[in-house]
């Protein structure tokens, strides 16, 4: 620790941190464009200039490239510091097209923010004198560049060199002709390309998915966890439900990464970034359906669950608990899986249950973030006990085989679309079971053959907790209510429990989680609050070592 003084305020700072971070620790913001804590230091925007007094000598230095040292006296308000900030802003803005009214970044643009805080100068440049550069450059499948808005901070260039190692972008030309562009004949097309938009401090790089969709000041955000793979990257959901007439039905406008030291640092992959489209997809299931209700105007969930309960009771009496099987989902939250487990294995004594199928799709895995296992909560399911551990119990694939061999009479399926793993004639035979209850988010062939269908809430429509591959339990937050009759999965199991004689007192996800921590050893000691903001490791699982997200060989 060394003691430094920032604007008269004494602070102790850890070794080897720069003045921007030191000031941040003291609660003082130092404006900057090119500096980003996840990237190497470029030192080129010159916005973070500070006056530093050391050994009796005062000097103007850049905060990003100056390491805090014992006894430094830093002024962020010295006259020449303020003058420099204003001049840097004036330099950056002199050729800026000032097209804020049509710029997606307006409202979260550091040119706007810093101008209001540190600039407030009148322009000395006539509009006709402005230096023109290229606009609307299609860089790749996800990103569009407007060179006139670019401040040439090189954050994106460094990200692509240092994190993904793909190096698609470079700054070409010199002096006033400097321009960000892709390397000739190369497209900005890698699994993390969307991150360059997050990194861009201005509106130069915009996301094709978000361009011209919403002004950012209409957006609200909640912290959440990405559901696209088992890493569980921390994200923020940006949504707008006040303007349903814009982009019909689209509530989530975008996902942005949220910093988590141990999971994803500042980044998320494109697959995760654009995974939210499923939440507002037109094929969402919104109504409860039963096979016996064909033509019936309004089936309700109670009736569907009563039918299912009757079938479960019948099967249990006639053929024993071995005739009932549950194929849950590793996409369900810890709460869902806990109530499922409580109801079927502890209360009903159901023999066969699993959450996994061998043929589940897997994703690409890399050393940066992406994991091959695409289910966000397989670890949670295992810890809660949803695994075919003991002998004589069927795995997911065997459950299906047994159902086709008439050994299973009642089958409950969550989310899985079995038409993808079965031949059509076999798949249709599943409809001949005594009862097939299906819980899903989306329209699928399962709806056609199930006896009862209950729509469940998407992850953004409910609170929940998920356990990632490391054993870190993290929380998602409800952004908006579920569509139609959809409801969280655990609520369905709670209602079904009521039909078969199991009373579950918990009425909210938080209460379910509290019960879970009492009854499942791996979750002991965790509290709902402690999961915010960055999650907690399961009991007895050591915190993984902090691994700086980097490609195998960083470029020098």
């Amino acid at each position, binding site marked *: 620790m060394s003691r430094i003084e920032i604007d008269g305020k004494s602070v102790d700072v850890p070794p080897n941190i720069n003045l921007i971070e030191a000031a941040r620790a003291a609660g003082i913001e130092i404006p900057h464009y090119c500096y980003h804590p996840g990237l190497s230091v470029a*030192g*080129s925007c010159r916005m973070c200039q500070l006056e530093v007094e050391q050994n009796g000598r005062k000097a103007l230095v850049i905060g990003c490239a100056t390491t805090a040292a014992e006894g430094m006296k830093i002024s962020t308000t010295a006259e020449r510091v303020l003058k420099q900030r204003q001049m840097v802003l004036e*330099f*950056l803005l002199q*050729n800026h097209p000032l097209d804020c009214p049509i710029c997606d970044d307006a409202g979260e643009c550091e040119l706007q923010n810093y101008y209001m805080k540190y600039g407030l100068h009148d322009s000395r440049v006539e509009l006709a004198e402005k230096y023109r550069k290229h606009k609307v450059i299609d860089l790749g499948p996800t990103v569009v560049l407007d060179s006139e808005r670019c401040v*040439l901070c090189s954050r994106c260039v460094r990200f692509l060199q240092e994190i993904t190692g793909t190096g698609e972008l470079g700054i070409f*030309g010199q002096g006033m002709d400097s321009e960000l562009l892709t390397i000739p004949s190369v497209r900005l097309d890698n699994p993390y390309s969307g991150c360059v938009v997050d990194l861009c401090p201005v509106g130069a790089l915009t996301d094709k998915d978000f361009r011209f969709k919403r002004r950012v000041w209409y957006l609200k955000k909640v912290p959440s966890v990405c559901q696209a793979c088992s890493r569980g990257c921390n994200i923020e959901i940006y949504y707008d439900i006040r303007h349903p007439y814009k982009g019909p039905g689209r509530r989530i406008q975008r996902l942005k990464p949220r910093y988590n030291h141990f999971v994803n640092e500042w980044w998320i992959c494109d697959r995760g970034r654009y995974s939210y489209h499923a939440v507002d997809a037109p094929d969402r299931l919104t109504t409860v359906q039963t096979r016996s209700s064909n033509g019936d105007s309004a089936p309700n969930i109670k009736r569907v669950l009563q039918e299912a309960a009757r079938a479960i009771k019948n099967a249990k009496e006639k053929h024993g608990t071995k005739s009932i099987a549950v194929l849950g989902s590793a996409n369900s939250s810890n709460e869902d899986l806990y109530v499922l487990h409580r109801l079927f294995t502890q209360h009903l004594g159901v023999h066969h249950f699993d959450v996994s199928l061998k043929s589940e799709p897997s994703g690409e895995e890399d050393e940066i973030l992406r994991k091959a296992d695409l289910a966000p909560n397989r670890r949670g399911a295992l810890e809660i006990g949803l695994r075919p551990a003991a002998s004589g119990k069927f795995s997911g694939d065997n459950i299906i085989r047994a159902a086709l061999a008439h050994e299973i009479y009642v089958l409950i399926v969550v989310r899985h679309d079995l038409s993808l793993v079965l031949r059509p004639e076999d798949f249709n035979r599943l409809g001949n079971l005594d009862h097939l209850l299906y819980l899903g988010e989306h329209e699928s062939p399962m709806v056609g053959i199930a006896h009862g269908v209950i729509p469940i809430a998407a992850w953004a429509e409910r609170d929940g907790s998920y356990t990632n591959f490391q054993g870190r339990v993290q929380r998602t937050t409800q952004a908006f209510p579920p569509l139609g009759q959809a409801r969280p999965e655990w609520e369905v199991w709670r209602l079904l429990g009521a039909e078969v004689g199991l009373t579950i007192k918990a009425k909210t996800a938080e209460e379910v989680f509290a019960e879970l921590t009492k009854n499942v050893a791996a979750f002991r000691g965790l509290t709902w609050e402690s999961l915010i903001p960055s999650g907690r490791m399961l009991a007895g699982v050591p915190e993984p070592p902090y691994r700086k997200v980097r490609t195998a060989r960083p470029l020098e």
Partner: protein
Amino acid sequence: MHRLSVARQHGAYEMLQKALTMEPAQVVELVKASGLRGHGGAGFSASLKWSFVPKDKFPRYVIVNADESEPGTFKDRLILERDPHALLEGALICAWAVQAEAIYIYIRGEYFYPTKIVNQAIEEARANGLLGERILGSDFTCNAHTHPGAGMYICGEETGLIESLEGKKGQPRFKPPYYPAAIGLWQVPTIVNNVETLAAVPWVFRLGPEEFAALGTPKNGGTCLFSLSGCVNNPGVYELPMGFPLDGLIHNLGGGILENRKLKAVIPGGSSSPILTAKEARGIRLDFESVAAAGSMLGSAAVMVVDETISIPRLLLWVLRFYAHESCGQCTQCREGTGWMLRLCKQLLEGKGKSRDLDDLYEIADAVDGTTICAFGPAVAWPTKSYLKKFRHEFEALVRE
């Protein structure tokens, strides 16, 4: 002289032989005693630079900065073309002093002919055991390579040069921490010296440090190559002792001003040095301290003579055009500021200038001065500020409103 056989007749590589019998630290001490200063522009003590190399970091490199591109400077070319073996010998002595394993000679891209000559000299030296393994029978192994630049002014800045040599865009690195002597080429200790500096090293050994130092002034050892250009009758390169009178250079050696016109101003150290009015320039001596005391800098010792027929605003336009084109574009102030200043200066000369423009020009130059990664900012700010300050009436005459 550029042929090894001729150069050896004049004693080339004898001093290398002598240096190789000395300890590297002794070599540094000897150069220190001579007071040899860098002739690239900053005038930094050569031996001090050599002594900054961290003790335990290897490999090490020596880079010869032959990217001579400061407007008005044309002295290194002469050494490259006429006496490349003096350069090689000096570079090898330097390499021995810092225990470097390779010498890179970074030559500006436009110097096709000098590059050819230097390559030829390297081949000859290698064939005669003066380069490569076990030089002159000692344990010392060192190679030399030339590398042509691609025509960028900023690659003459030592860290920009290193970036360029590494195959990247020539953009200077910020200091700290990238002081080349500690973190240079490929992140290892690197000594970057100007051609003239290294070519003077054999003379330090030949004359002995005391006699070499005595050629110049107490703080400026030896001689200096002055590139005299502009409105004089005999422009050219003059090797003169440090501290030689400016008047003598212009009026005696330079043969006076063209057509006996009146001297208006002198730019004493290349286009980036502040201008001196005829009055300020009178009687000054050409060494680093005296020129600095007069309010300018000796820089690369490119003396440009400006007579009464030259318009200072036009001169500024010429300077700004160069710097706006050559800014690497990394730092905000320099990238945007040079272009902006050029635009204002152009408008002035086109008769569209406003009175506010002069203050703006000065304010912009001030914002670029000393606030950027490298010395390019000051290099454009100093001429601009000094022209405006010392010849403001000429600018004001152009303002219409």
